[in-house]
């Protein structure tokens, strides 16, 4: 059994833009232990977001070589439904631009992973999920915003909703892609405080950032340069 919760080994990935081949990852490896917060630091185009997407199975295209293991098992072997379940329950995503559904309210956005997970049993599971999501949003200071649409929220509030959504199904890993990149320093700091609080309760975090100050909040920093781990 691997001691790592999430592991990437020698990942090589090339994007094909028409006839042009763009190598993004050139043998990048990464490990995340249970309860660890790792920051992936790198400049723009270094491949840090691609690495995060491969870790979270958001990028379903084949890698050139290497692989990702979750809890010691290769995720490449997962079938379609298991990949969906992995994204739904094992990991939670937080994006730089929040990516909330504009037609849904704050509460509904936060409940989205629960709704996807429950399928046709949603009505029987709704009350419990709603209670959990409300508590989470309350803890994030959004209890007065439950029925608001994302367009009615500030950037910091939107990101808090996005974090609440990512944690809705109590995943083991939070994958955050520049979660403060679109926020001012003060609001960014508040968001990091929220993430840190969840980390203290045992949540494993892989966070992509280009800001060394943000990376400094993590337990460990992995620096990515031109698709390779630098340290």
């Amino acid at each position, binding site marked *: 059994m691997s001691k790592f919760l999430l592991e990437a080994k020698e990942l090589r990935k090339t994007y094909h833009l028409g006839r042009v081949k763009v190598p993004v990852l050139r043998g990048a490896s990464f490990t995340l232990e249970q309860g660890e917060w790792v920051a992936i630091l790198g400049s723009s185009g270094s491949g840090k977001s691609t690495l995060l997407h491969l870790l979270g199975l958001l990028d379903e295209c084949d890698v050139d070589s290497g692989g990702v293991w979750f809890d010691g098992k290769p995720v490449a072997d997962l079938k379609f439904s298991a990949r969906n379940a992995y994204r739904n329950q094992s990991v939670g995503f937080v994006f730089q631009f929040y990516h*909330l559904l504009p037609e849904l309210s704050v509460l509904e956005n936060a409940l989205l992973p629960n709704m996807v997970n429950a399928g046709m049993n*949603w009505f029987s599971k709704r009350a419990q999920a709603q209670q959990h999501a409300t508590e989470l949003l309350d803890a994030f200071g959004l209890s007065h915003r439950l029925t608001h649409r994302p367009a009615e929220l500030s950037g910091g509030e939107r990101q808090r909703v996005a974090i609440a959504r990512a944690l809705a199904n109590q995943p083991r890993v939070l994958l955050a892609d520049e979660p403060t990149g679109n926020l001012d320093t003060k609001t960014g700091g508040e968001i990091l405080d929220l993430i840190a609080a969840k980390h203290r309760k045992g949540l494993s975090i892989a966070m992509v950032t280009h800001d060394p100050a943000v990376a400094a909040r993590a337990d460990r920093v992995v620096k990515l340069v031109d698709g390779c781990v630098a340290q």
Partner: protein
Amino acid sequence: MYPVQLANRYLTSRIIPLIAVAAVALCVALVVIVVSVMSGFLDMLRASGRTLMGDVVISYPIRGIPWYEQLIDTIEKLPEAQAATPLIDTYGLVRMPYPDGSEKEVVTANVWGIEPQSFNRVTDFSKALYWKPPASPEAAASMSPDDLRLKLSDKILNDGLNLVKSDTGEPGLVLGMHVSIANERMRNGSYRPRYPQWFMPKQSVTLTLVPISAKGTIAEPRERVFPVVNEFKSGVYQIDKNRVMISLDEAQKLLRMDAGTLYDMQAPPNADGSLPVLGTSPAKVSKILVRAKPGVTPDQLQTAVFAAYEKFAYDVAADPSKVIKAPRVDSMNILTWEQHLRDLIAPVEKEREMMRILFSIVYLVCAGLVLSIFWAIVQEKTRDVGILRSVGASRFGILWIFLQYGLVIGAIGGLCGVGLGWLVIHNINFIHETIGQDAPAWSYIASFIIAAISFAMSVRGMTTGVVLSTLLWSVLGFTLALVGVGLMLHRGTLIWDPSVYYFATIPDQVDWFTAIITWCGAVIFSVLGASIPAAKAADIHPVRALRYE
């Protein structure tokens, strides 16, 4: 449940679905209106045909059917038959009482010699007679106060039913409502004499018929003056324009089809110079109309009548006292009313089917509209698809969101279309009447006023620099100005010409079978139209969807 919730939100929070619903509704309404009018037209044709012909028609036109009374007795004893009536169907000339002077108008007419009582049992003739007092106080209340029928007594109805002018005992004639030019049709469907002195039941006409021998040669024409005792309105314009009715006896006399003595032309004369008598030449008719008992189909009755005629022909052939024999069954035309009117009904049926097929293209329009609208929606919602995939939504879940979207648009649009179709069909005669009149002054004045307001708003848009507002108000202003000019110049247009479409009114019943089929088609093709963009959405790579700009 998220596909249902999201499809619901997408439907209720944007204007694009409303445009798609409106497009589907218009397509469905178009099909429902056109096919319903065609179906109604066909139904009216059939109903009128059956009312006028009974269920089965036996015909032997030139030589006529001898011993028809015996045949009718045989038929009326059939368990399938309710009543039968003899008929002479021929053509003649009617000399009208107008204009003043010696040069009167002469019209060609389809002349029916009928036995009024039995004819009424087979064809509801009494209902077709137009000049009669209202049947009830309610019917009287629904008539216009100046309707001439309010002043009539039962005498005119009875004269028409008996084909006799009761004052004088003369045999009378009933004209189709449009045979003469004396009747003017009012907007409410009633008639009144064009001039008071032109009330036809107070006039007489001269009918000329041409007897035709069994060998097909024409004998000397015979004419007779008939007082007009009533007029009838079948609802079928071609019949009301051409047909007149006289009593069977008079028709037989004029056409030399009445009973007479049959002489042996080959034998030497008797001592007194007369020819030896062979027997009796019976009176003849050219047709016998038969009505089925309730629950008996025309086809069942036709089979029974065919067998009855065979027996009748056999009995006549076996009777030595009957010198004139009945025609063999295989030389007779024994047809259901639908077969008899096949030449009239078949082209209309074909036209309706052609319309159905042609208008099925509308389904493709539906699918194309939904496809293009959904293509735009999927483009707009690409990032949402990425978000959903990032929280674990399956490809099928994404597909189902957009298919549901299409399903709901098809279902609601289809329902609205059926509703709109019903509304138009239900009021189609009112709409036609309105189009047939000059537009009221208030309508174009209102159009011009609203157009002026729109132009003012457009100028306001220009001054504030808002292009969309300026454009929309300008388009509205120009459209309403054009509508206003159109209304001002409108002088009434006759679209439904009864001389072309047989009936004086446009059918106003929805063909529900077509409506349901069209609704189903709209739903299916809307889902089909949505399926390609939905599949495209389901196939979007999560990362690319999230990065979509």
